[in-house]
């Protein structure tokens, strides 16, 4: 297996939640891949399905009401959607681990840090208590917690938010996983702590060569950490490509709108409108009713198929990029405005 073979391949993933009021298709056909040693960012507004998508990988959400209704998730050759709960339990923490958004509640308040770290180590490794302890101290040391051996006796409430997140990362790394899923790990932290945590993740990735799936709504963080970006909107992928391509030549109007929201990019008002009703998503492109470039065809049919655009593996789901072989977009008579300047070099990699 070479470095370029995907570590994780998610294809056509559908995850639904059955509630009293109806079924929410939180993830509605999502594809992406993560390779070893690279960082892939899932980007989107709150409620776009980022968290559900990454919790679907090892099925962390509550079942019921949650359920993976279709699609495949292949991790290192294993089809995870076919795995039993037992098999998943063996993979969680050992080969795929998680870091969550809010470190305040992510640690069990009634156990010491040491107890929780040791639990992570001893669950998947057959080591003696002493060896596990030594490893725990080393892990804490590695994530930058001073006086590590004393800290093992501390309870979560005695640590700051940043410290807790470091403990969470230490716990996630306890068994040298292949894939680390970090769900907005810095959102709840101060900016200075944020930068430290991001640096730590980068360093650890370089050291262990793990793949990181990073979820965030903060494009500033994306620019800092990502190799590739997947833009999600209302449970669908809008655009994906390398961080360079997506930032330099954003193709989907939604991506552009997100980028415009970055400080210093002009738009202060955010994106007008709000996410569609998750119970009854609109036909056509999910973004059409907030899209400045929408044409009548955007509101019919399904989400447009992916089209390759300029750059490596750069794909976008937008009618404006439909290749000339399909004439529908021309019939509408509306010439795409800004996007048209960028479609010319659309070379196909696949």
């Amino acid at each position, binding site marked *: 297996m070479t470095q370029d073979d995907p570590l994780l391949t998610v294809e056509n993933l559908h995850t639904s*939640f059955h*509630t009293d*009021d109806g079924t*929410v298709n939180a993830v509605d056909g999502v594809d992406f891949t993560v390779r070893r040693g690279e960082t892939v960012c899932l980007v989107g507004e709150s409620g776009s399905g980022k968290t559900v998508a990454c919790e679907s990988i090892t099925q962390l959400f509550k079942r019921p*009401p949650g359920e993976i209704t279709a699609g495949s998730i292949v991790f290192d050759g294993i089809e995870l959607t076919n795995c039993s709960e037992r098999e998943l339990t063996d993979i969680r923490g050992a080969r795929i681990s998680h870091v969550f958004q809010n470190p305040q509640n992510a640690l069990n308040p009634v156990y010491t840090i040491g107890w929780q770290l040791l639990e992570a180590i001893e669950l998947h490794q057959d080591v003696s208590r002493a060896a596990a302890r030594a490893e725990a101290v080393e892990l804490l040391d590695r994530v930058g917690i001073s006086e590590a051996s004393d800290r093992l006796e501390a309870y979560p409430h005695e640590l700051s938010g940043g410290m807790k997140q470091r403990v969470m990362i230490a716990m996630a790394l306890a068994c040298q996983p292949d894939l680390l899923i970090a769900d907005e790990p810095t959102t709840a932290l101060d900016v200075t702590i944020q930068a430290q945590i991001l640096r730590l993740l980068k360093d650890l990735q370089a050291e262990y060569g793990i793949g990181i799936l990073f979820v965030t709504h903060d494009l500033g963080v994306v620019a800092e950490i990502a190799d590739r970006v997947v833009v999600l909107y209302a449970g669908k992928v809008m655009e994906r490509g390398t961080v360079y391509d997506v930032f330099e030549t954003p193709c989907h109007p939604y991506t552009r709108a997100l980028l415009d929201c970055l400080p210093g990019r002009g738009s202060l008002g955010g994106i007008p409108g709000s996410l569609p009703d*998750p*119970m009854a998503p609109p036909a056509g492109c999910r973004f059409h009713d907030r899209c400045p470039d929408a044409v009548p065809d955007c509101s019919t049919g399904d989400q447009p198929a992916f089209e390759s655009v300029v750059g490596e593996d750069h794909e976008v789901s937008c009618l404006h990029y439909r290749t000339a072989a399909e004439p529908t977009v021309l019939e509408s008579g509306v010439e795409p405005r800004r996007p048209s300047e960028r479609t010319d070099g659309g070379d196909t990699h696949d």
Partner: protein
Amino acid sequence: MSSDSDSRRNTFEDVDWDEIDDTARPISHRALAIASAYAIFVGGVAYDVLLAPEGDTIASLGLSLQALDWLYILTLLTLVVFGLVPLSEHRRMTAHYWNQFKKNTAAVVSLGYLLVVFAIGSIGPRVLEKPRVDARNAYQPPVFTSVESWLPVDCVGPVVNDRCHGTWAHPLGTTHEGKDILVSVIYGMEVSMQVGLIAAFITVTIATVVGISAAYFGGWVDTVLMRYVDLQITFPTFFLYLVVVYLYGGSLFSMIVIFGLLGWGSIARIVRSEALQRREETYVLAAKNAGASSSWTIRRHLLPNVSNSVITAATLLIPSLILFEASLAFLGLGDPTVPSWGGLIASGRNDLQYAWWISTIPGVFLFGTILAFNFIGDALRDAFDPRSGGGTT
């Protein structure tokens, strides 16, 4: 934009600045109406105490109101003023809570049941004569059922095959004393409602005042009040009542007052902890910074925000009060002049094998009423829970 803020107010109990502007006028119509309602009440009590001839409040109507009745009127008045009036004023909020509440079918049925019990219990005793002892009428079975004909002294209904059949004259049968059970049950409805509502009213009033004062003033006020609550909670109300009833004899009035005066400890704790949380919240601090007075802050910011948990706690308190009263009446330690369900159950206890209906029927009503309050309390808790209702995303 305006629809946006409307829907926000609909879901969360935010500060409603428009309303504050409205009520900032010297005297609003609402305040005036409330004040006059209470004034009429005070006038009535004063008349009864000072002027009315002994026993009769309004002789011409044959109306005689006792202390208990006045307290009941005050309770119902307060329920209307602070319950129904705000609900009808804040229609959108009411609709929101109703939609949450409606999801729980059992609670809706329970609400209907309780309203019926309340209505019958309020009207029945005014219309029906109090059940009387009538030995010849004893042990009549309920309608559609029958017993061995030797049991009733004198079977009112037809006797077929040596079995006495029940009639509509006594739809739920009669006791060993010949009291009509339906009438007794109806009288019992009023007793149960009075016990539950009045005692809960006293409890909630004291608990709210104490809890809010403790939270708002803090310091030694908090210490003293909460120490007292610690002590009060330690002493089981039931046993305290036993002692008091033993020493002084128990009327329904004193029982209710004792339940109300001594059972507020745990709700005061709830109010205090809720109010403490709210006190630190931005909008309360903002109001304080803007120069709002203590009473304003308490009334406009703390009270509305603790009301949900108080209402829920009170709804769950009522069934235990009703059960207490029934238990004491069952033991024969209640008010002997009052036809309580507990007393009725006790009166049929020894005949249960022959005349199953005497104890069973009031028991079913007691069970149903307690169950209904429990269902409603549970549904209210869910409806008020900000975490409920939203989908999972």
